[in-house]
Each structure stands twice: as structure tokens, then as C-alpha cells.
């Protein structure tokens, strides 16, 4: 059984993580390296399609197992619980205003799909076999935390709040917001590809094997190179990040992982799956959550939640968190 240090070493010398580090270095050195916008978005869609499709094919082979249902339930609970955990820690460690606290908590309630993809890739590299159904769990965990965090901001909108003089107040949770979080592009591709994998099974995999498996590791490297650039630029750009806030950006994911571990122990999940569940709980969204929060909580300061999610939590999870969670899950379960 691999220990934490072996896993950490394996992770730090994996091409994907090294490409991420290259992106960070290039970003801090103010290199003119850029990945074109449309290409980066295409890479992200590819990763979601591949991971969703592979998950669907594998889920068809195993069927609706009790483990799948347990992980799904745990994912939902974690997603709703994480904003409260993040809100409490951030409030204790900073003097941020309530909208910014809630907006940041929403980012920790949702998940980072790329962190999840990196975690599944790491598991493969380390010879672990987490449940393939986890892509469905990841999709389920995208949204509830965002909604829960909006209640933290002051329930679903108070009378008169957010209204212009003479204008009418608008509720925080509107149809526009629900459309944004439920039909978020990442969720649509991930769930859609999972369903297509589920329907087509091995027959579909025989047709797409080269596309979803052969190209996967390379595309992940390219996307993490881009994420490295973004993380570095986010930290250099307009940011209200303090040392205490940055510390919170590491403490919150560790608490999320601990909560997921407790759930995994209670539900007797296997250690390989538990490691990825811990990563999911520890990750912070930077695609779905900002979109929802900008609509529902524009008073929240993006100069706090974006550098925290992209510049602190994401790199921490990619470099240290993923192998750490996997190693702890192996040791405890």
C-alpha cells in the first residue's frame, strides 16, 4: 500500500503537475505565454466530456451499486455543509463583510471539476481504483453548495435590499440564477457525457477509446499549464488576499477533506474512492460559483474569492492536497 510520501512524490513528478508549475513560473515571470481563450475553453470541455463519458461507461458495467448511492448521498451532504464550514472559518480568520464571506463560501460549497479530473488522473497513476461513478457525484456537488451559501448571505433577499431608489428589490435566488447554476456549461457536458457513456457502454467506448483515453493525459497537461498561468496572474492582479486569508484558503479545504473522510468512514467507502471524495470536498469552484455569485451577490468582492479559489486552494490541492488526501484515506480506511 502506497504511503503519503510515496504518493506525494509520484504526484509532484507527474507531467500534469509539472506543467502546472511551469504555468505558475511563466505567469510570475510575466512571460508572454498565453493559451488562446477559445482553445482553453475547448480543452476544458474536452476534459469534462472524457471524464463524464468514461464514468458513464464504467457505471453501466457495475450498475447502481450501494457504494454509488452512498457516495452520491455523501456528496450532497458535503456540498450543503461546506459553505457553512468555510463561512465559519473565514469569519473567524478575517474581517470580511458578510456578502464577501458568503460569496467565498459558495466557492467552497461547489467543486473544482479540474481538481477532480486531476485527482482521478493521479489515482490512475498511483494504481488506485476509485469508483468510476464519481463523475456523477462531482456533477451533483456543483450546485447545492452555491444555493446554500446564498442563504448565508441573508436568506433569499430582504425587502428593499438591492433595489435602486424607486426600484424593486430582487430575490437572491431567481430563475436567472437557477438557470445559471443548473444549466452551467460544465454540468451540462459532464452529466450529458455521463449519460451517453451509460447508454452506449463498451460499444461507445470502442469507438471513442483513442479520443477519451489516448489524448486525455496530454490535454490535462495543456489545461493545467493554462491554469498555472491563470493562478499566477490572479495572485498578481487586483487582490485583497492577506496572509491570514491565504491560510484560510488551505485550512478550509483541509476541513472539507476531514469532513469527507468522516463520512467515508461512516459509510464504509473504499479508500480509493474516499481519497477522491476528500478532494471533491476540499476543492473550490472557479467556473460555476463565480457566475452564480456575480448574479446573486454582486456586493461580494471578487478580489477575495477568485484569488483564494484559483490562486491558493487550487494550487494547494493540485500539488499537495490530492496525494495527501489519497494517502490519509489509505491509512485510515
Amino acid at each position, binding site marked *: 500500500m502506497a504511503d503519503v510520501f510515496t504518493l506525494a512524490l509520484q504526484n509532484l513528478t507527474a507531467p500534469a503537475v509539472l506543467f502546472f508549475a511551469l504555468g505558475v513560473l511563466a505567469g510570475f515571470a510575466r512571460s508572454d505565454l498565453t*493559451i488562446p*481563450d477559445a482553445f*482553453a*475553453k475547448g480543452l476544458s470541455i474536452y476534459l469534462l466530456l472524457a471524464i463524464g463519458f468514461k464514468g458513464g461507461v464504467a457505471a453501466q458495467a457495475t450498475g447502481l451499486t450501494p457504494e454509488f448511492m452512498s457516495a452520491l448521498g455523501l456528496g450532497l451532504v458535503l456540498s450543503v455543509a461546506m459553505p457553512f464550514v468555510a463561512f465559519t472559518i473565514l469569519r473567524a480568520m478575517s474581517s470580511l463583510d458578510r456578502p464577501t464571506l458568503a460569496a467565498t463560501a459558495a466557492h467552497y460549497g461547489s467543486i473544482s471539476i479540474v481538481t477532480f479530473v486531476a485527482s482521478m488522473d493521479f489515482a490512475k497513476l498511483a494504481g488506485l481504483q476509485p469508483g468510476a461513478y464519481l463523475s456523477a457525484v462531482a456533477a451533483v456537488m456543483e450546485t447545492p453548495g452555491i444555493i446554500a451559501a446564498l442563504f448565508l448571505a441573508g436568506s433569499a433577499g430582504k425587502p428593499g435590499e*438591492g*433595489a*435602486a*431608489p424607486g*426600484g424593486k428589490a430582487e430575490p437572491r435566488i431567481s430563475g*436567472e440564477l437557477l438557470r*445559471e447554476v443548473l444549466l452551467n456549461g460544465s454540468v451540462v457536458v459532464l452529466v450529458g457525457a455521463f449519460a451517453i457513456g451509460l447508454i452506449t457502454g463498451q460499444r461507445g467506448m470502442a469507438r471513442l477509446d483513442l479520443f477519451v483515453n489516448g489524448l486525455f493525459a496530454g490535454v490535462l497537461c495543456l489545461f493545467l499549464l*493554462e*491554469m498555472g498561468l*491563470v493562478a499566477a*496572474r*490572479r495572485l498578481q*492582479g*487586483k487582490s485583497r488576499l492577506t496572509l491570514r486569508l491565504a491560510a484560510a484558503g488551505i485550512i478550509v479545504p483541509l476541513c472539507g477533506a476531514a469532513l469527507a473522510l468522516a463520512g467515508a468512514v461512516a459509510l464504509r467507502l473504499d479508500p480509493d474512492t474516499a481519497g477522491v471524495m476528500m478532494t471533491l470536498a476540499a476543492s473550490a469552484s*472557479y*467556473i460555476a460559483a*463565480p*457566475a*452564480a*455569485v*456575480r*448574479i446573486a451577490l*454582486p*456586493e461580494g468582492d*471578487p*478580489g477575495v474569492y*477568485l484569488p483564494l479559489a*484559483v490562486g491558493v486552494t487550487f494550487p494547494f490541492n493540485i500539488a499537495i492536497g490530492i496525494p495527501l488526501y489519497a494517502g490519509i484515506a489509505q491509512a485510515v480506511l
Partner: protein
Amino acid sequence: MQTHRRRKIEIIVESAILKRTEALLTECGVHVFTVLDGREGRGLAGRWEDENVADALEQRMIVAVTTAEVAEKVFARMAEIFARYPGVIYASDVDVLRAERF
């Protein structure tokens, strides 16, 4: 050559509220407008640039040409939006060739 005086409105908003702004324009009676991507710039909160990840914070510019009455309505409605959301709106006089289009 015969030209007609109209108001050109330029609005810059984050993409998160682009759809809402477009709907507002249509409700006010703006029939034609164009949306452009913002690449980089500097605002009161400092420098910003399109960075491929958080789409919601990308800037979009909407350019519309309309009558003075409709432009006034748009300003009043946008004031409600700008009470909560960041963005700018400004207008200027322009001459157009085919008045019936605006």
C-alpha cells in the same frame, strides 16, 4: 445627403448580467444592438483582462443606436441595475442614414 439624429448608447457590463441587460434593452424598445467582447482595460478597481477562466467576470460592451426617448428609458432602467452591479453607460449623438432602422 439626408441624415437623421439618433442616440448611440454604449454599455459595459460583466457577462454575468449580459442577458439581463439585453432583455432590458428589448423591453425599452431598442431593436438593434451589437455585443463586443472586452479584452483588457482599467477601471476604478484597477486593471482587468480576459483570463479564460471565470467567464462571469469578463467584460462585454453593448452598442445600440436608438431614439432620444428610448435612450432616456434605457438610462433610467440601467440605473436600477447599476445600483447593485458594476458597469458603465454613456450616450452620444450620432447621425444615421436610414432612420427607420433605429
